[in-house]
């Protein structure tokens, strides 16, 4: 919301010499954030000029350029060269003899744009003929200002070339712009901002002159009939509880609005249009009451306020035909022709036009929720809807209508009817019994009772004593529907006293338990992966519908049960991921496309596993805590979201260098990564081959489980077809780990095993096995047969080649034995080894070489 300083000063006393920045700062102190400052940053010379002549030439770039000679009075070239100003101008909306606004070299336009004489289109341009936008007067870029059009011919006739245009156009005036929070609808008016500024100055007596304090005629039966027939209020709140209608007849709609009004509207960021429209806007800015002006001739009967009927349509002022909803509140002519969506936008048909002579002014009050819904439903945000949504003072309507009538008759001729319609179903807000110590207890500052009462009275509250000293009855002013209970009043006291008087006291909890095991364990996992050379990234969880196909995930796999967004950012990716790897590959691809050939990434994040169709999450009442059963239903409707670690790598995991060649990332790096994560959490895991789990390579995928068989995850090389479908580098490897499973398994005290200090005995054994026998099985068999003294089994060589029987390979193991109580003899060790080999032979067909 904007407010020119000069306008504010009409309603309140500005501090002597206060600049726009000072006023904005004062408003900040009472809780109105500064949004912007307009005007006041223009440095002259900016003068009135008269176009004496111009030479119009079409340029090669297609533009038409006018080389003008402009009388700018005793300025510029007249002073230095004794001739009129020569200016090159790109606009063509003026004629010889027009008065225009000329900015001369040396001036600085808004935005720090310094003007100097410069060559353009082959000639020196000694300044510029200005458009409204260039001097911060409006948003009009189409052509330059012609003063007779801007100010009207009467005022233009009084002007002389060389007159200061800064003063003439009020360009030195500053306009502040404050950000108004949704609870302070009344600040969408100069009245409200002036009132707040007055509070910021300590609310001095007589320092606020309420523009709504005008004498209004009593309502009577002679006014235009208005009927409110709201058959379907929203949440039992009537859609319209106030409707003031006034009629002005015989105005000349072609008369322009007065220049001061147009200037103020421009300063407010609004384009002047016509007298009737400008007056309604001006009064709205002044008092915060949106008004609507109807051409009385288009009305055939009483105005009826009602809800829309199914299927009704309306073409609004913006030319859009809208299908109305039964919740839309309408203003209608006799209940039939729709004049507009109440408080949002009028219809095109009843619009005031140049032929209008009789005008009906509507000043009404509508239910904020109803207006908000209509505004959103039709995606139509108007100055009116903005205000009604946030709450308009329901008691300001008569004054607003009166001001509009006065302005219309003063500037448009015509006469006001003596009929005054005022349908008033407003109720005065309930009084609140306020504990005067409550603001202090909420804020943490001791406010004396008298100060609390004084502040509330300054704000416009009625404060009356009760029987006891500690409580008062407070009735909020009509423009403050947001003041309802103790905390609301506490905020008012705090902000008027100044938030910066609130001390800073560090709270002292009685002692927390630190991070949970799961929180610590997740950090361990992330740090272990980063320590192992993987770089953490965070990817969006949105995935494409056909991603499961491209990942070759089989029908029926639970990873195909994805949650769908009703309003995805992109229709390309409407689903939420069911695995981290499925989005992590996006980051891999992006890195590769940026020229990183060797990439190793990980991400820890949630995946979304509905496990079936979504249950409807109930929406219980918020007046009290829902029942345990209701809450259980709310929680149960939220799909499972396990935390996963995804890991991917492509290119070299070890670089080539002076030490030798590099090593490409392969399936084993992924298995090792999963094993190290498990080891970091001291969780033993088992690894077996998994041929059927996509998107992994059928021959290069490990399934990792806990010892009890609980799935931990998969690791290995991705399927070549998947890589092709996802445009990933060949031999890209990946792993996905269910972190929650590992964390749950690690949430126990590890029990230390004793270890022997006797010397170890090592023995090597080479086993010939069929190539399709997994090494894991051979090792398991060796372990099973070697006895209690076995300490370690290490596979130190794998050989496949000509010297072996076809379809076989040789696995060379080093077995380490150690006894708890003695040094083992060679015979003992050989015995253990033979026992181990025997079991391996039986289990896997291994033959010792």
């Amino acid at each position, binding site marked *: 919301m904007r407010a020119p300083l000069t306008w504010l000063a009409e309603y309140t006393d500005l501090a002597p010499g206060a600049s726009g920045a000072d006023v904005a700062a004062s408003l900040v102190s009472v809780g109105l954030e500064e949004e912007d400052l307009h005007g006041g940053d223009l440095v002259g010379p900016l003068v009135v000029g008269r176009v004496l002549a111009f030479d119009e030439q079409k340029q090669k770039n297609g533009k038409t350029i006018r080389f003008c000679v402009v009388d700018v009075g005793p300025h510029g070239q007249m002073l230095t060269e004794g001739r009129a100003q020569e200016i090159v101008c790109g606009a063509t909306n003026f004629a010889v003899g027009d008065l225009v606004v000329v900015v001369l070299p040396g001036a600085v336009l808004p935005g720090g744009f310094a003007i100097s004489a410069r060559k353009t289109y082959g000639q020196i341009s000694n300044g510029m003929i200005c458009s409204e936008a260039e001097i911060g007067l409006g948003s009009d870029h189409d052509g330059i200002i012609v003063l007779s059009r801007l100010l009207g011919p009467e005022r233009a006739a009084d002007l002389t070339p060389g007159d200061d245009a800064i003063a003439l156009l009020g360009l030195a005036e500053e306009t502040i712009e404050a950000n108004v929070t949704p609870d302070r609808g009344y600040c969408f008016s100069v009245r409200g901002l002036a009132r707040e500024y007055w509070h910021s100055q300590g609310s001095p007596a007589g320092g606020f002159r309420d523009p709504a304090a005008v004498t209004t005629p009593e309502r009577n039966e002679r006014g235009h009939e208005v009927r409110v027939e709201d058959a379907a209020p929203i949440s039992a709140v009537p859609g319209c509880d106030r409707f003031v209608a006034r009629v002005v007849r015989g105005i000349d709609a072609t008369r322009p609005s007065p220049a001061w009004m147009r200037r103020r509207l421009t300063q407010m960021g609004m384009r002047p249009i016509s007298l009737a429209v400008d007056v309604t806007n001006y009064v709205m800015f002044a008092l915060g009451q949106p008004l609507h002006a109807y051409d009385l001739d288009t009305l055939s009967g009483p105005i009826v306020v009602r809800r829309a009927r199914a299927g009704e349509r309306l073409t609004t002022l913006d030319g859009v035909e809208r299908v109305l909803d039964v919740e839309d509140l309408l203003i209608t002519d006799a209940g039939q022709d729709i004049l507009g969506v109440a408080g949002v936008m009028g219809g095109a048909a009843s619009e005031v036009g140049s032929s209008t002579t009789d005008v009906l002014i509507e000043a009404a009050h509508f239910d904020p929720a109803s207006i908000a819904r209509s505004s959103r439903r039709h995606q139509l945000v108007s100055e009116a809807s903005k205000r009604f949504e946030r709450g308009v003072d329901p008691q300001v309507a008569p004054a607003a209508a009166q001001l509009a009538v006065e302005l219309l008759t003063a500037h448009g001729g015509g006469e006001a009817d003596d009929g005054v319609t005022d349908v008033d179903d407003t109720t005065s807000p309930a009084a609140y019994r306020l504990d005067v110590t409550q603001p202090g207890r909420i804020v943490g500052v001791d406010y004396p009772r008298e100060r609390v009462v004084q502040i509330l009275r300054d704000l416009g509250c009625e404060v009356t004593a009760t029987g006891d000293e500690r409580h008062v009855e407070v009735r909020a002013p009509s423009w403050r529907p947001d003041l309802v209970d103790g905390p609301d009043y506490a905020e008012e006291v705090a*902000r008027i006293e100044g938030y910066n008087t609130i001390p800073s006291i560090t*709270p002292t909890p009685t002692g927390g338990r630190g991070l949970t095991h799961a929180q610590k364990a997740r950090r361990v996992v992330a740090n272990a992966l980063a320590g192992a050379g993987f770089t953490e990234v965070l990817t969006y969880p949105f995935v494409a519908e056909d991603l499961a196909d491209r990942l070759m995930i089989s029908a029926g796999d639970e990873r195909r049960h994805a949650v769908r967004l*009703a309003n995805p950012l992109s229709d390309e990716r409407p689903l939420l991921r069911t695995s981290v790897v499925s989005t992590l590959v996006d980051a891999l691809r992006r890195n590769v496309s940026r020229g990183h050939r060797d990439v190793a990434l990980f991400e820890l994040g949630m995946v979304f596993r509905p496990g079936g169709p979504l249950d409807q999450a109930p929406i219980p009442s918020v007046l009290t805590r829902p029942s345990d059963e209701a809450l259980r239903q*709310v929680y149960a409707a939220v799909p499972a979201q396990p935390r996963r670690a995804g890991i991917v790598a492509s290119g070299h995991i070890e670089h080539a260098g002076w030490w030798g060649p590099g090593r490409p990332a392969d399936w084993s790096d992924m298995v090792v990564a999963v094993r190290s994560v498990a080891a970091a959490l001291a969780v033993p895991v088992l690894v077996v081959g998994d041929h059927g789990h996509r998107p992994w390579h059928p021959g290069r995928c490990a399934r990792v489980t806990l010892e009890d068989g609980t799935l931990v995850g998969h690791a290995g090389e991705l399927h070549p077809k998947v890589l092709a479908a996802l445009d990933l580098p060949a031999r890209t490897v990946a792993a996905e780990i269910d972190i929650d499973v590992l964390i749950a398994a690690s949430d126990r005290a590890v029990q230390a095993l004793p270890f022997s200090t006797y010397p170890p005995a090592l023995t090597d054994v080479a086993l010939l096995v069929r190539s399709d026998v997994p090494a894991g099985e051979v090792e398991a068999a060796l372990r099973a047969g070697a006895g209690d003294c076995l300490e370690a089994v290490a596979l130190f060589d794998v050989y496949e080649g000509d010297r072996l029987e076809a379809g076989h390979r040789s696995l060379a193991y080093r077995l380490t034995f150690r006894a708890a109580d003695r040094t083992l003899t060679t015979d003992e060790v050989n015995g253990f080894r033979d026992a181990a080999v025997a079991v391996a032979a039986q289990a896997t067909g291994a033959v010792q070489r």
Partner: protein
Amino acid sequence: MSGPNTDYDPVEVSALDPAAIEAASEDALAAIAAATSLDQLKAVRISHQGERSPLALANREIGALPPSAKAEAGKRVGRARAGVAAAIAARQTELEAERDERILVEERVDVTVPATRRTPGARHPIELVTQRLADAFVGMGWEVAEGPELEAEWLNFDALNLGPDHPARQMQDTFFLDPVDSGLVLRTHTSPVQVRTMLEQEPPIYIVAPGKVFRTDDLDATHTPVFHQIECLAIDKGLTMAHLRGAIDAFVRIMFGEEIRTRVRCSYFPFTEPSMETDFVCFACHGAGAGDAGGQCRVCGGSGWIELGGSGMVNHKVLRACGIDPDVHSGFAFGLGIERALMLRHGVQGMHEMVEGDIRFSQQFGMEV
């Protein structure tokens, strides 16, 4: 040549002639000094200290001398031999030291050649900043609370006094799940974690809730549909806005430095009343508003202050919806966006870097910020 009974004239035993011994000794010492390697010294030792060396031969002659001459000759030869032995030992030590030194020189490598076999990994700075803040609050006795990202509408909106008509509940801000009447959304803030905590725990409650949140904004320099927040919630007896300020001040000190001051002003949020907005003194220009190279401070845009974020005393309606009696307990809540904190504290230029997953971004930060 000589017999025991003949008159002995030492002068006549040439090998024991003092001048000869002196000469042999000098020869030996010269050879030792001239030895420039351990091999040469070894040869010198054989020729001047070995069995066939002049001094060894001389020593052998001593036995042939008459007893009266033995002592003097023995002394002379012994001195010479000791001198040679000492010289050899000294030279040996010298040459060994030289050799050791030389080996170290020869073994020198160029330590500036790159030798990274494996690029080190890194954590994402969003996670690191979150950890930093969480750890500091845990240090003050708070706990870290978490909740799901896909959340019930009731927990994300209704319980927080964001009624059905609240603008945030419109499709242009919030990701709704299909079907829309499922009552599920991608959480738009971490506040549902507050609600869950209040519903399930008895006060006192002191929690920080970090996490991922979602809004239907397209990615640009200042927006991303997926971002991170951290929120603090305290519910206890007698908590006031002064405690809220205290907690915020602690927060700001952790992120931006011990000396950073704050200022507060009135604001509005549906879930708090009274509500508050906090600014802190720009850590870059210390409130002066001027940049290093003149002109405006890049970090705060010249105002000298940086907006931290919204906060307030938990709205009584929220407390009631969560089963907490506002006549007994009060509380406060505040929060901020991690991405913004990262942009401010670490000069990150825009959202793109944080969400694209380019390894160069995370790798700048290592494992702790």
